């Protein structure tokens, strides 16, 4: 993100933490925000990984969020069942979905990163990673979804290069 965006976000956070509107505090906040944003820019310039995100992917985030209530129920039941004396707790299952990882270019890295985050959003599923060599998205599910596995594992449908509209 740009320097200004980070600085504004940090200043907003500063405002949230202080309770006054006194001028000295606000100036300190501006200075702290500027310092933080500069640090963030320096890190970004090291180009450790360049990630390109398409903003139009973000509205799809409602899909993993819609899974949340059901997952909370499933996990609660699983925990309570496992707590009974003599019960055999479930181990969950490792599952893999084919994922077109592409090269190391920013768009593909962005897709992989977003898939990793979105798949892990709802508690029943978390993403271990995008295995580029084997072209697979590796996840772990506690209560395996047998009906629509693709929906819960890759809710944003990041696995194909050009996601369907």
């Amino acid at each position, binding site marked *: 993100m740009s320097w200004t965006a980070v600085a504004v976000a940090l200043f907003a956070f500063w405002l949230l933490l202080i309770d006054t509107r006194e001028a000295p505090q606000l100036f300190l906040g501006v200075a702290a925000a500027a310092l933080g944003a500069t640090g963030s820019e320096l890190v970004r310039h090291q180009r450790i990984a360049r990630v390109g995100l398409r903003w139009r992917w973000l509205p799809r985030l409602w899909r993993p969020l819609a899974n949340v209530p059901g997952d909370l129920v499933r996990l609660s039941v699983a925990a309570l069942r496992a707590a009974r004396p003599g019960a055999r707790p479930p181990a969950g*299952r490792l599952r893999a979905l084919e994922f077109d990882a592409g090269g190391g270019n920013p768009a593909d890295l962005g897709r992989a990163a977003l898939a990793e985050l979105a798949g892990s959003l*709802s508690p029943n599923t978390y993403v*271990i*990673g995008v295995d580029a060599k084997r072209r697979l998205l590796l996840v772990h599910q506690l209560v395996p979804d047998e009906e629509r596995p693709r929906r819960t594992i890759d809710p944003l449908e990041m696995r194909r290069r050009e996601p369907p509209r």
Partner: protein
Amino acid sequence: MSVGSIVVAILLVLGVGLQVVACIGVAAMRDTYARLHYPGVAAFGLAAIAAAIAVDAGPSMIADKALAAAAVVLVTGPLLTHVTARSARRRRLGDWTIRPGEQVERIER
């Protein structure tokens, strides 16, 4: 009892309940990767508690900060789970990718 206090009570019961369930889950599961699902449950419990505070306190600094704390946990939670899973696999298997001979279910078309 007003509508507000009923909502607050429901949210509190939900929030505390989810936290308790999360603790039971972490303690009762035998497999590390199964356990790792439960901190995420606790995050949603915290969200419910923060919502209860927001409803009870109305628009105020305390509500803002409580919701911000819940937002931090909700946003960082999935990332933390992801990183912990990778670290666990690296520690145990050397590399997080699928090991030769490992049983992984492949989802076909």
